[in-house]
């Protein structure tokens, strides 16, 4: 019983915290594209090195540091798939794909709620081990 309560407490705490360790981003299209990068709890990746690569030749188009709010900007000069890499020295960061079409409108991206992913993860772990236990006992 205590074990089950401990697991429940971990799940609730996880839900409440909703993870600060993952990195999320928002893309704001326009003539100049703005990308805002933060940890999942909202803490911005401030003063973090970034690099933007062009889809035309794969060469570096823009380099710099994000601002205090974790924002960076670049002005694409060609349609295609632009790549934004952001690195922190401790190995965190993001590899962001920015699709740019001819009239600079960003297609809607798929967004999966993080809380749903967490629940699915717990469910899959318990389901896989339950199936394995059933297989072993039979």
């Amino acid at each position, binding site marked *: 019983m205590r074990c089950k309560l401990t697991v429940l407490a971990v799940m609730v705490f996880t839900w409440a*915290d909703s993870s*600060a360790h*993952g990195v999320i981003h928002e893309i704001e299209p326009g003539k100049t594209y703005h990308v805002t990068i933060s*940890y999942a709890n909202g803490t911005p990746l401030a003063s973090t090195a970034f690099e933007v690569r062009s889809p035309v030749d794969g060469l570096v188009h823009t380099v710099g540091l994000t601002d205090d709010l974790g924002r960076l900007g670049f002005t694409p000069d060609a349609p295609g798939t632009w790549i934004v890499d952001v*690195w922190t020295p401790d*190995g965190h960061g993001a590899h962001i794909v920015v699709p740019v079409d001819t009239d600079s409108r960003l297609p809607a991206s798929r967004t999966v709620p993080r809380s749903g992913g967490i629940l699915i*993860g*717990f469910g899959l772990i318990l389901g896989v081990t339950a199936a394995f236990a059933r297989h072993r006992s039979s």
Partner: protein
Amino acid sequence: MHVPDGFIGPRTWLPAAALAGVSTWFALRRIRQTMQAEAIPTLGVITACSFGLMLIAVPLPFGGATVHATGVGLLALRFGVTTAYLAIGLVLALQAFLLGDGGVTSLPVSALCLGLGGPLTAVVTHGLLRRVNERLARFVAGWSATVVAALLTALVLGLQPLVAVDAAGEPLFFPFGWRTVVPALVLPHAVVGVLEGLITVMGLDRWRQEER
């Protein structure tokens, strides 16, 4: 240690994927032969706890970094290296595919560093120190598993500017060398390793009590 896509070049992650694939096949064979059915529910609970622990970020008072415990020491000492490897690999895969925490191409490297390097370190450290003091051995096993896993990840990341550069000599993937990435990754994990050690001690105490 959730390394995103684009940080590790194919010269590193392709061999790592092959090694991780072979390791997974070997581990699956071994777990099918040795795992007892009564222990599997406990494995599921601890693996779920590991998944939860990796989602709880612990902010550090310096540098703005956050770190997390993993439960790798507890898994290794309770179930052994191969089972811990599969459990951690499953957790990392779920986090990459469901939550985007860590990349898919970097998954083999993360699985080998954290899932194999961590448990091996925990088991070896525990074996060396258990004659001195059992609980101290568990604590150090949890702490060292975290630190060694971080060190292995840092070594792989710091290798990238040496093995993956363009014609001008500029890094194509992770740009920081060992001198930067090793302290940036290992020092925070030396702090969170204390939490990992405590989780290992308390978790094993709990399950030993239930076994009596």
